[in-house]
């Protein structure tokens, strides 16, 4: 079992004729993902990575029954590409693109609340159900089938923690990289809810980082609604306040949240042990699973 993605997922790759789009479409297919089409304006009628390319996502939905998109579109056009996914009625859109202007994402976020499509990302590695399908750029070989759900704001940190788990023989139901941008689609709380409701997920890893308040909100949610044991990791204990954490941002909420300390405290208070190192996270998961 898994959440969000399995071997029935029918994927359209937006931007499949670009370097990254083509390479990762092939990698996804090699892993077993059911990539059924590409969508690139002006390239309709061509073929890329062995699948037909359409000018619009709508066509890919009509012709190939695509239900999920993976977006490898350059940042200037990626906001529009996400809008197109939402407008095409897909179940799931996964935006890999890094560097989408924040105001574009604010508009996407507004539209998202009016549709039934779920967005993962942007600026994320995607998600994977080991042994079934991967959507995005995650290196498939480090994952293993199993019973741990993982959700992370950081791509490479996901790999690091998964590596620690897999090396001990602990596999994953699904691993979701939600992205570290200020405005993202699916957040920790959404992912935790999915894992909590998945009968095959017996433990959850949640990897956060400094900035924002998503981890504090997740901690409150875990306290109220999650029975599955959760272990956490927070990156950035020693980092100075990031340059992007601008001045006015702190005024919105007052300061005192968004630091590693406040996140770790909030998680501990919700009964979530937080590892000092990725290996310690794996130790906690090992204990949970007995």
């Amino acid at each position, binding site marked *: 079992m898994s959440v969000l993605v399995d071997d029935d997922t029918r994927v359209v790759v937006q931007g499949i004729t670009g370097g990254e789009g083509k390479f990762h479409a092939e990698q996804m297919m090699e892993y077993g993902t059911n990539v059924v089409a590409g969508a690139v304006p002006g390239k309709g009628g061509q073929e890329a990575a062995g699948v037909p390319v359409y000018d619009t996502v709508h066509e890919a939905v009509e012709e190939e029954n695509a239900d999920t998109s993976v977006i490898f579109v350059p940042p200037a056009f990626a906001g529009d590409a996400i809008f197109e996914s939402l407008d095409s009625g897909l179940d799931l859109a996964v935006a890999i693109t*890094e560097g989408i202007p*924040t105001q574009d994402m604010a508009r996407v976020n507004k539209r998202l609340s009016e549709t039934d499509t779920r967005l993962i990302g942007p600026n994320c590695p995607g998600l994977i159900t080991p042994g079934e399908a991967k959507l995005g*750029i995650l290196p498939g070989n480090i994952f293993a089938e199993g019973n741990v759900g993982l959700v992370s704001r950081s791509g490479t940190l996901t790999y690091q923690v998964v590596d620690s788990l897999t090396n001990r023989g602990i596999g994953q139901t699904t691993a979701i990289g939600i992205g570290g941008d200020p405005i993202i689609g699916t957040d920790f709380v959404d992912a935790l809810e999915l894992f909590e409701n998945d009968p095959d997920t017996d433990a959850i890893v949640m990897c956060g980082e400094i900035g924002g308040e998503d981890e504090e909100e997740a901690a409150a949610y875990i306290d109220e609604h999650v029975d599955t044991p959760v272990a956490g990791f927070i990156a950035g204990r020693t980092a100075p306040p990031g340059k992007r954490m601008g001045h006015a941002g702190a*005024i919105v909420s007052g300061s005192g949240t968004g630091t590693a300390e406040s996140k770790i405290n909030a998680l501990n208070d919700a009964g979530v042990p937080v590892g000092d190192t990725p290996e310690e996270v794996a130790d906690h998961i090992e204990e949970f699973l007995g």
Partner: protein
Amino acid sequence: MKLHEYQAKQVFADAGIPTPASQLASDVDGVVTAAEEIGYPVAVKAQVQVGGRGKAGGIKLVEDEDEAREAADSILGMDLKGYRVDRVLVEEAVDFTNELYVGITMDRGEGKPVAMVSTRGGVNIEEVAEEDPDAIAREHVDPSFGMHPYQARKAVYDAGVGRSVARDVSNVLMTLYELWESRDGADAEINPLMVTSDDEVIAADAVMNIDEDALFRQPELAEMEEEAAGGDELEQKADEYDFDYVRLEGNVGIIGNGAGLVMTTLDLVDHYGGEPANFLDVGGGAKAQRISNALDMVFSDDNVDSVVFNIFGGITRGDEVARGINEALEQFDDIPKPVVVRLAGTNWEEGMEILNEDLVTVEQTLEDAVQRAVEYAGEVNDQ
């Protein structure tokens, strides 16, 4: 990207927000000439990108030529929290009765822009936000419609701004929002927005942070970036190489891919008793040249005694990383500082075959790599 005060003021003034008369100067005579043209009293304000300039002696109010010379002399060339002051803004001193705060930013929790107004301007507004959050009125804006005038009025009245200036302050807030939106602002703030005895409002300071990811569609502001850059030499170099880089106090240089993983590497250096010298994220999909540039960066920091290279490839490929490390190191007869490399993920095996192991120390796990780098840095310290 943060604009200098004089740049932000120009942007605000061009949009119709009242600002005091001002001129930029870079030497003492220039300051005096500007002050005479504007008319005493004037404020002499250091143009560097740090907060708390006033308290640090970077802003002085002067009444006559002698004071202007004295202030220019002490401010120009001074070191303000690590930044050398090369330019000052000479500005009309506004006689005010009240100081307000107005600002626009993105509320990441809500995923929406938020306009903020407070009658407690002229002070550290973050402290106000913490001690008395209700002293700041907040109005969220639907990003697909923009701010309605009624919302600006509502924020202004909610904040308790006096009726005599409420309309003008609302207009400033509307203009500020429109600027923030059209210029892809991250933050746009005026603190203080001064109210004069004649009930005029005037922006005595101006802060504008631009979303770096949107600079491609803000060519005029991107040009200002050249001017806005400055400060730490290494950080300038990082800008040229386009790295996310932060200089720190320690002596273990840290290079990795992805902010979360690099932060984790910093945390582990600390965990194992070392001190990070920097945060350097090469980003996703780095090619050999970029890897080589990263090593060049970290080697240029005299504080660095050892370097740990931590790559977990997804979109980044281990073979490219290994080539970059070889390129950077093969140009030295003696490698200036010991380099520990940990490669994992995409193409790590190819990378290990390519990597010249005579030049670096290879470790398989993150923990081992960090411990080794800390050990090397300690050994150098002991010598």
